[in-house]
């Protein structure tokens, strides 16, 4: 069956024929032979089947493989390796100590001074609790001597001032309320003195001291 001497010449051409790689003239010759030769038609069909089988078979084998990390792994190999951040910091610091010891030590000392001086400063500049403005700090309290009702002025660092009206003779809760009896009556009752016998100027004006009423963060 395979003994057709004409086939010998055509068999090697069947492979480039199925690949579409024959020049037009040769292709026509092969096709003419194929129409007349059943064996070579079968051989060409075998070659096509084999080609398809290889393609599909290899494709199947590749389908089993997970390529999810493939590109990542290649990229990791071609990208210069970077040590972890901490390691890099440690290396950089140790290099600095090696080569710039004095500069490093002096900058560390500066940093320490900054921390020691700056931190208490930062902490001391806190606004008192209860005063709405956060930048507000009471700088001074000035009691006015010789007045029954003494204003207490508190200056704030943003230019404002808070004035408290404080009754000199009252107990610390001076801002108790407005519905109190007149002041001199209360005095005479408490001290057992005639209000006429004493000059108003002699009323002891307590200096702002330990007995002075302290303003608290009450309602203004």
């Amino acid at each position, binding site marked *: 069956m395979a003994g057709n001497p004409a086939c010998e010449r055509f068999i090697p051409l069947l492979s480039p024929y199925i690949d579409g790689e024959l020049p037009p003239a040769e292709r026509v010759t092969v096709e003419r032979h194929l129409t007349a030769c059943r064996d070579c038609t079968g051989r060409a069909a*075998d070659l096509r089947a084999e080609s398809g089988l290889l393609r599909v078979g290899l494709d199947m084998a*590749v389908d089993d493989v997970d390529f999810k990390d493939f*590109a990542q792994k290649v990229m990791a190999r071609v990208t210069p390796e970077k040590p972890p951040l901490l390691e890099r910091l440690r290396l950089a610091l140790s290099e600095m100590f090696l080569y710039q010891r004095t500069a490093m030590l002096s900058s560390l000392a500066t940093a320490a001074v900054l921390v020691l001086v700056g931190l208490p400063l930062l902490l001391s500049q806190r606004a008192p609790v209860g005063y709405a403005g956060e930048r507000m700090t009471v700088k001074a309290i000035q009691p006015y001597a010789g007045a029954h009702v003494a204003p207490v002025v508190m200056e704030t660092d943003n230019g404002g001032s808070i004035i408290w009206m404080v009754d000199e003779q009252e107990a610390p809760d001076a801002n108790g309320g407005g519905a109190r009896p007149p002041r001199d009556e209360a005095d005479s009752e408490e001290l057992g003195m005639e209000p006429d016998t004493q000059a108003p100027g002699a009323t002891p004006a307590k200096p702002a001291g330990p007995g002075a009423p302290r303003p608290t963060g009450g309602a203004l």
Partner: protein
Amino acid sequence: MPHKLATDDLTLVKRVRSGDQRAFKLLVERYQRKVYAVALGMLKDKEEAMDVSQEAFVKVYKYLDHFKGDASFYTWLYRITSNICIDVLRKRRGGGGDPVEFDETQAVDLSEARIGALGSRLGTNPQKSALRKELAEKIQEALATVPEKHRAILLLREIEGMSYEDLARTLDIPKGTVMSRLFHARAKVQKILSDYLELDEAKSGVGGE
């Protein structure tokens, strides 16, 4: 269906050269499957094929400056891949000795194979779903019997569908050599596969339901 045209290989190569690593990742993703398939067909070992595929891409990256750009990027990539595979096979043989080659002056005897057996069993384009795992393994076995240089040509032709011109450029051999090597490789694989199918047919005939 509108299809977004992918950036061509040479543009990506230029981007890689100017320091764009993502462009190289795109090239890897574009060719990883086919490079692996070539390596697997050459080496028959999955892990080795995976290592070689990675190695091929790493080498491509390393020598990208040597890539002239006068040939296609993929012919260069496959040349590197098949060269690494051939090196691995050489080491496997123990370093020495030439690989077995076909005597291409001898006429190929196809009379042993039953003409038309493969074609009648499989048709011209076997479907993946119809192909059994066993047969897929047999294909790799059959490939292993083909001398490596012939195997490389056959694989590049079937997997990448390379033209004879590209095959000649990739493997640095004349086009005539491509044609004859391909023919011999196919004859060898065909013989093994048709024998296997014939045996299989006989077996299933005996033990049939």
